[in-house]
């Protein structure tokens, strides 16, 4: 027998072993599939004892069960809804006329599109030539504090709690006798844009309040960055910051007080960032921050059918 016919016999034999024309065993008779047990995203009414106890301490999605190694359908939908909310917050843009309608000087960075905003932090840190001119003309000069509202990574947050925070903060500053600059609102803004805006107004301290990077199911958080002696070329080491400013975190009223205390420290010590000593006003900061600590937010159902 030659090589070729031996191979041919081997292949034929394999085919017989694998079941000739039907390599699978006969199809089983279909049986009606019973309804699976109800597996839902834990809600206060329906969660397990474990999920109940855990919810008092964490917003992590625990006690959600499993099907095989995967999620129940209800959990998948909850997750997708939370993801969509986060993505929606990132994709939202500040409408062109919003700043003006609120009475703020409308400024834009050198960024010209949302994608460019995400990819070019350097352009988001400088004013466009037109905005630079407008701001030079319209800003009050030689002031203690320059407040700036900005979109950052969530225009939703900026338009949500932004005005309330800006007004409360400005009021707290005035209460302490600081001169407050013309309120500005910047689109496509990164944190460092505060340097140029503050520099033009010759502000001693610049404070930018901007939408922070959304988390799952959220998108309404604001962060505040403060810098003494705003000028182009400052780095992160020159800044102080506060994050998590939203209804379930540090509420705007408390944040405003604490930010004003930070401004006062900067005006007293003529510095900010790593060099700023918080100790002299620790009690005030603590008082202002006291209300800021909240138990973790409750995770609510986003999907109802």
């Amino acid at each position: 027998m030659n090589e070729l016919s031996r191979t041919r016999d081997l292949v034929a034999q394999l085919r017989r072993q694998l079941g000739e024309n039907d390599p699978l065993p006969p199809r089983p008779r279909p049986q009606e599939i019973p309804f699976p047990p109800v597996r839902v995203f834990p809600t206060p009414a329906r969660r397990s004892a474990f999920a109940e106890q855990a919810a008092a301490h964490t917003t992590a999605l625990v006690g959600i069960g499993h099907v095989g190694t995967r999620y129940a359908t209800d959990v998948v939908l909850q997750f997708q809804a939370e993801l969509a909310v986060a993505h929606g917050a990132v994709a939202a843009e500040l409408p062109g006329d919003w700043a003006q309608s609120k009475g703020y000087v409308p400024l834009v960075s050198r960024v010209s599109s949302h994608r460019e905003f995400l990819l070019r932090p350097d352009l988001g840190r400088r004013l466009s030539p037109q905005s630079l001119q407008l701001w030079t003309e319209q800003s009050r000069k030689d002031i203690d504090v320059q407040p700036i509202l900005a979109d950052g990574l969530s225009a939703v947050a900026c338009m949500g709690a932004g005005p309330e925070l800006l007004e409360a903060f400005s009021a707290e500053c005035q209460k302490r006798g600081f001169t407050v600059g013309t309120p500005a609102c910047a689109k496509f803004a990164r944190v460092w844009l505060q340097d140029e805006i503050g520099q033009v107004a010759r502000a001693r301290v610049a404070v930018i309040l901007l939408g922070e990077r959304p988390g799952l199911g959220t998108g309404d958080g604001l962060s505040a960055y403060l810098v003494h002696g705003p000028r182009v070329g400052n780095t992160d080491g020159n800044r102080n910051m506060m994050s998590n400013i939203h209804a379930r975190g540090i509420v705007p009223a408390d944040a405003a007080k604490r930010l004003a205390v930070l401004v006062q420290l900067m005006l007293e010590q003529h510095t900010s960032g790593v060099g700023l000593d918080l100790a002299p006003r620790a009690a005030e900061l603590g008082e202002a921050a006291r209300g800021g600590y909240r138990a973790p937010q409750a995770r609510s159902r986003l999907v109802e059918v």
Partner: protein
Amino acid sequence: MKLSATIRGSTFGFGSVKEVLARANPPKSGDDLAGVSARSPVERVAARAVLSQLTMAELRAHPVIPYEIDEITRLVEDNLDESAYNAVKHLSVGQFREWLLDSKTTGATIRSVAPGLTPEMAAATAKLMSNMDLLVAGQKCEVVVRCNTTLGLPGRFSSRLQPNHPTDDVLGILYSTREGLSYGCGDAVIGVNPATDTPESTAEILRELHALNTRNGVPTQNCVLSHVTVQMKALDLDCPMDLMFQSFAGSESGNKAFGISVRLMDEAHDKMQRLRSSKGPNFMYFETGQGNALSSDAHHGADQVTLEARCYGFARRYKPFLVNTVVGFIGPEYLENGPQITRAALEDHFMGKLLGIPMGCDACFTYHAAMSQDELESLKVLLGAAGCTYLMSLPVGDDIMLNYQSSSFHDIPSVRGLLDKRPTPEFDAWLHAREIMVGSKPGPRFGDVTVLR
């Protein structure tokens, strides 16, 4: 050394090895931001053609940051294993790529030359590889390390349990930890990124995790990922610390921005050698990620892939138990979308393994990057197939403190099931004893937290 190539009559010349390395990279938004990427797809191929002809000796002679001004370059150069280097120095990058992919080349032979490779050599090779090449070559490398458990054996796939909490509520951390263990996660480490970077809170979390592991006999490691100087102070508080953590960059100035240096890390390593609670001999844990040098303007005009490889050159000094790239965390200005994040994860895994590092990956995205959940799930399977040592694991992959999306408690057993992989042998035995797993399938107590006290 020839630094030009001609494609269809157009000649592309490059000014330096560093420039060739950068232009040869597949598209990355971070390289665009740094202004070092190829200016056209054809120029990219020309750079690769030039790179393929450079020898390993030429790459050693031209590190992307000069010896005189960078301690990572000095560390790599001064500690290179000369006999291993001599085995590869004559090969071009193109030939070295072929040697790696050759069926006759095994994990053992790759291991024999690993200490003679510089990060630039690993990065150069990655640039000549497709994603499938990176999977095949990465899967071949064998890196096995041991602390309380043995990590990286063939057929194994591990996970870090990451029970982060926005206010470091210890009970909250423990609820997530118990849930994760009940899904078979946490065999690489139970590691918490703390919200508060203080020695006291670091020590407190370590004590609680240690107590949970002891109470339940879980064979794994604990870790709190505060700054290394904070962990050194925590060690003075007499707390049980199995692994010590730090983030690394690929240049001296990048590490300075992280507040570390070779000298500080040597000191930290020595202290851990004396005061740790784990068996060892490997007990350090490092995180890296493409783009982290550029973000502190410490990239010296080099591309982010080469700088990432240099992190592993730094890391291998300390014979780490864990190293992972946090690939999608840095944001779209460095890795814009799903394809870029996927590519970076596979590059980092390959380069780390080639340099002898037990490479894991935080396969993840932030919500402003253009990556879908489906793309992220696919990446987890690719990494499993590449032999990636470990992934992260969180409730639904959602980090409630750092606000990003990673892999989940459910993903780890899913990938294990798909690829027929098991956790570390020690942890595997524990899972079986607790009936959480039976073989590679979920057991009767899978997902049942009452299995843990």
